[in-house]
């Protein structure tokens, strides 16, 4: 049929609105990427941006409200926590934790996962069976539980969180890469390379890998959101980053006992997590729409 489904407009829309719709949607993804970038910059330049030292305790300012409430002051914009530390500054420094852990975990897990996936998908055979089995076994552990178990084993701390999360996180990129590799290895360019005498390593990394980058990027961005929430959850439970380091999850936990009198201690850090993760999700959805060949523009 000459009329393809994606050409026909959605119900109730004129051509003009549909174009507008696409534009706005694109704008949304674009706007979210800007927000993510904003958080990145926040994390990078934290010491220059934060108005106060996040570790500076001042018991006189204990539980001081945000500036728009009675008793607040502009210089302590979002109020102070139980130890008199400025919430805004701690938020800004907290972004360092969330983003650096997010990036580190995704980087490590995607690297390992890609290599494992390439080998499993291309070489098949014993390597594939082993790697797939390992993935199945690791997938059998609910995320948080596994991380907790590992943290209990290794102890708390920045480095350990990254490792603990990466241990399970590599499975998802591995699965995606394996699937893509299995498909890619049947393609002609692989045969062409083989006939030219290319080694397996060459084929895997120089031929197949560049062609599966797009789904890989999409997966990575999606997972980053998940990692950030998990790290925050771990910190909330107290087994993540240890005090006095400011982590958003820990800040929410700190504020738990004060939700009656000082709601701002828990609310703002959680809100920050929400905004960051939401932006990452919207951004990566936009990415997926852009990269997915089925969504032709």
């Amino acid at each position, binding site marked *: *049929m*000459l*009329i393809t489904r994606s*050409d*026909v*407009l*959605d*119900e*109730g*829309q*004129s*051509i003009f609105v*549909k*174009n507008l719709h696409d534009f706005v949607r694109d704008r949304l993804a674009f706007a979210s990427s800007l927000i993510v970038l904003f958080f990145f910059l926040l994390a990078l330049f934290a010491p220059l941006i934060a108005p106060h030292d996040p570790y500076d305790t001042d018991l006189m300012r204990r539980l001081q409200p945000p500036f728009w409430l009675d008793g607040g002051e502009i210089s302590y914009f979002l109020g102070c926590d139980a130890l008199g530390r400025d919430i805004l500054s701690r938020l800004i420094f907290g972004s360092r934790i969330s983003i650096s852990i997010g990036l580190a975990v995704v980087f490590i897990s995607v690297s390992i996962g890609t290599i494992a996936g390439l080998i499993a998908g291309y070489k098949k055979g014993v390597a594939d069976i082993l790697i797939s089995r390992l993935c199945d076994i690791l997938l059998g552990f609910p995320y948080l539980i596994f991380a907790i178990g590992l943290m209990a084993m290794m102890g708390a701390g920045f480095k350990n969180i990254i490792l603990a999360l990466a241990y399970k996180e590599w499975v998802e990129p591995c699965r995606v890469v394996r699937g893509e590799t299995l498909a890619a290895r049947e393609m002609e360019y692989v045969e062409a390379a083989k006939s030219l005498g290319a080694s397996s390593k060459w084929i895997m990394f120089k031929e197949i890998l560049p062609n599966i980058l797009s789904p890989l990027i999409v997966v990575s961005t999606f997972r980053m959101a998940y990692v950030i929430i998990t790290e925050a959850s771990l910190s909330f439970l107290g087994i993540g980053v240890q005090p006095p380091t400011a982590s958003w999850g820990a800040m929410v936990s700190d504020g738990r006992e004060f939700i009656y009198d000082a709601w701002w201690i828990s609310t703002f850090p959680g809100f920050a997590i929400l905004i960051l993760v939401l932006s990452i999700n919207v951004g990566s959805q936009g990415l997926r729409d852009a990269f997915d060949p089925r969504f032709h523009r």
Partner: protein
Amino acid sequence: MEKFQHNQNPILSIKNLRTQFPTRQGLVCAVDGVNLEVNRGESLGVVGESGSGKSVTFLSVMGLIRQPGKIVSGSIIFDGQEIIGLPDADYRQLRGKSIAMTMQDALTALNPALTVGSQIVETILNHDKSFFQSPGSYRRAKEQAIEIMRLVSIPDAHIRFQEYPHQFSGGMRQRIMIATALACRPKLLIADEPTTALDVTIQEQILDLIDGMKKSLGMSVVIISHDIGVVAQNCEKIAIMYAGQVIEIGPSKSVIHKPKHPYTSGLLRSIPNLSKLDQRITPIKGNMPNPINPPGHCRFLERCSLPIESCKSPIKMYHFGNSRSVRCVHNGIGL
């Protein structure tokens, strides 16, 4: 069972039908001024290539054009009643019971998650006039369904009743789809590409089946196909469609042996003839014009081997005796 009478009203009368789809690229005029008639007890073959508007025409008849597409003008009279603009509830009364349709690929047309029997029975029960559906009515419907399965030559119908579509072969599935469509003994059957998804050997069986059912149930039939050979033997009347319009129509023997439109003769020439093994197949060069903003002149102009000056203005249908009509200034001369 009504006898075929020339002076009776046609069962289906399409006048000046226009159906359009707004798309991102523009307004697609899929059906652009179509006039067709199907007489009672007659079988009409509608031939055209992909995009000619043949399927959309009859989807419009069924009232199955989905938003944002719509019928913009024209009239469709079925059994004496105008059905464009008919309220939904009334249309549903017609569908399945008075007009029925089959689709090209039976595998996708039948719900894979439901047994074939249930899909036939639900049509029957749906049109069951009784208010309360007693257990008796299900049993009767089931018997009726098995009966119609036997009629379309499905062996062991009472057992295969509970099987799923994927458990049948392509030809069988097509029969089941036909059985489903005929379950309520409709007055008009529209068969959209009934043979396209099937092996050549099965094609003839299906066409014979449709013909048989037509005779025994006294129905009128429309067979839509891109293959003129398929409709040639089984239809009394043939209509050729091109770029959203009917360009030739007439009794099938007349159209096949004495085509009046360059496109029709081109179609006939491109059928390989086994008795002339050294004959070259001459395809028609070019493509159909873009359905968005169709040209005002003859739509076949770019591909025609006999263009003249008067082809550059809009061409109307020229009518001849013996119910022949053609949309071409040449009227068959020179072909």
